[in-house]
């Protein structure tokens, strides 16, 4: 069924089609309409689930942890400082191997206050044991929720997963979306089969207890292993999704990397704008490719290395401010390329903060700068803040 809907509605459809059972949520812009739409679905009877109104995001994720421990399929959503308030609990969700799926409508972290998009919120969770998938359009926002449950609940993984959609650029973008049939989703995503630990009042156990130095390392290692296994599980889940629904995804999706001299690496909705530009550039004979990171965690090091190895020039765009370091995506790409000889030259850019649009004209500037180094852009650690207006330098 083809519809026009925004990213938040698409996410809510994805959760409904996944037959989520518990939805604890607290409102925050630009996420709020995800929770509101799910509340509507529940009150209309099109989704049989328990909606929990809680007093904060900290409580929302705490309730999600409890419900997931009890064996339910749990979904929540947040943004920005809401995610920041959850961070005491985010490690509990991954450490206890709870396959909660959380949509994050990406919004800048303060200060200064902003309602608008960048990735500084989800980047704070990059080392927390949550799988992270970044949608490029509203169709993916829907599809990735379904795929996220499939991967998160896999017996080899058992980890929480974030589906990130750029705030406003996707959360409020009205886009053409095909809504999958429920029977197809049911075929792709069976009911959750909880793992070894399910809380049951008939058979009480203690979980998430004080753990001494003799076991803590081992516990963390198993989470790291789960993330490692998620790489393969993700690819299987993407490929089986294509078999059922016809839409092909992967942890890394490239466009024209085979013969590209310059490769642009980016996350989220920006990829569409980059691909559109690359089509025009290639038509005029410029060998530029797109290396799109879909699964930011677990980071697909080997595939990034393989795809970028032949390029002369790699551009990494971080939609998160790098304060005292190069940007997070830039760090990961450089780590993936470490030891290659000859290695491509890597140029990092900080773009699109706090809702600033990234027009193709700025991408062209980045491209030119990466090749010629002509351009007087303010920089930290060699990473160009290309959109800083001259007066602020």
């Amino acid at each position, binding site marked *: 069924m083809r519809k*026009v809907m925004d990213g938040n509605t698409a996410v809510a459809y994805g959760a409904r089609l996944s037959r989520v059972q518990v939805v604890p949520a607290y409102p925050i812009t630009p996420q709020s309409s995800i929770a509101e739409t799910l509340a509507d679905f529940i009150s209309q009877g099109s989704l049989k689930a328990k909606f929990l109104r809680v007093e904060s995001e900290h409580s929302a994720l705490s309730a999600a942890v409890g419900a997931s421990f009890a064996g339910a399929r749990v979904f929540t959503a947040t943004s920005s400082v809401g995610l920041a308030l959850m961070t005491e609990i985010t490690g509990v969700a991954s450490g206890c191997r709870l396959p909660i799926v959380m949509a994050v409508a990406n919004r800048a972290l303060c200060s200064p206050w902003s309602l608008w998009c960048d990735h500084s919120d989800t980047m704070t969770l990059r080392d927390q044991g949550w799988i992270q998938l970044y949608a490029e*359009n509203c169709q993916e926002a829907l599809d990735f929720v379904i795929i996220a449950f499939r991967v998160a609940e896999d017996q080899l993984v058992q980890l929480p997963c974030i589906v990130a959609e750029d705030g406003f*650029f996707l959360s409020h*973008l009205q*886009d*053409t979306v095909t809504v999958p049939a429920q029977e197809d989703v049911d075929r792709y995503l069976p009911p959750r089969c909880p793992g070894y630990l399910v809380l049951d009042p008939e058979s009480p156990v203690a979980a998430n207890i004080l753990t001494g130095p003799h076991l803590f390392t081992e516990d963390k290692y198993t989470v790291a292993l789960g993330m490692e296994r998620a790489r393969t599980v993700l690819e299987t889940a993407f490929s089986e999704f294509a078999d059922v629904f016809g839409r092909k995804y992967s942890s890394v999706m490239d466009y024209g990397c085979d013969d590209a001299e310059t490769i642009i690496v980016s996350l989220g909705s920006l990829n*569409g*704008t980059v691909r559109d530009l690359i*089509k025009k550039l290639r038509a005029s004979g410029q060998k530029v490719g797109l290396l799109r990171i879909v699964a930011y965690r677990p980071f697909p090091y080997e595939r990034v290395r393989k795809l970028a190895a032949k390029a002369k020039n790699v551009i990494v765009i971080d939609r998160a401010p790098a304060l005292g370091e190069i940007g997070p995506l830039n760090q990961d790409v450089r780590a993936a390329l470490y030891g290659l000889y000859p290695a491509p030259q890597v140029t990092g850019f900080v773009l699109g903060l706090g809702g600033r*649009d990234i027009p193709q004209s700025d991408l062209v500037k980045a491209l030119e700068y990466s090749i010629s180094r002509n351009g007087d852009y303010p920089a930290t650690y060699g990473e160009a803040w290309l959109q800083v207006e001259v007066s602020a330098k």
Partner: protein
Amino acid sequence: MKQLILYGRGGQGVVTAAKIIAIAAAVYDGGYAQAVPAFTAERRGAPVYAYVRLSDSPIDLKSFVYEPDAILVFDHELPSLGVDLLKGVSRDTTAVLNWSKAPSQWEFRDRFSRVGAVDADALGGIPNIAMVAAFSRTTGWVSLEAVVKAVHEVFGEKGGRHNEDVARRAFEATVLA
């Protein structure tokens, strides 16, 4: 691909108009469409804008619209509030105006290839549906029948009938120059 900028004021239904154009094009005319949200303060009377893209194939581009193929002007007095209606327009750009006079009298007439005008305020409350119908008439990029179906989808049975009537009357009343 066609790119639109909708200029209006808070309360004129600009965002809904963008959505209806997108639904008409993508669901009922069988193409692809996206409506990009306005990043403006949600205040009644303040200048607001929205972007729409229409295409025969899936739309990759996610940035704002900088070079519109058409602009829809919900209030001809917007320039007095500092809104630059000519930003990014070329000689090929079409304009659709909410105004009661002949489009040939509009001060910016010569900057556009084609201008359509409808007295949208006179046709029934909020001007957005009349503007969408005038856009359909002026450009032909979405069909009136698709607009009517989209209006029913968005407004339901009762609101749908009223707004269908507004759309059909606005389509007929649109003056081209």
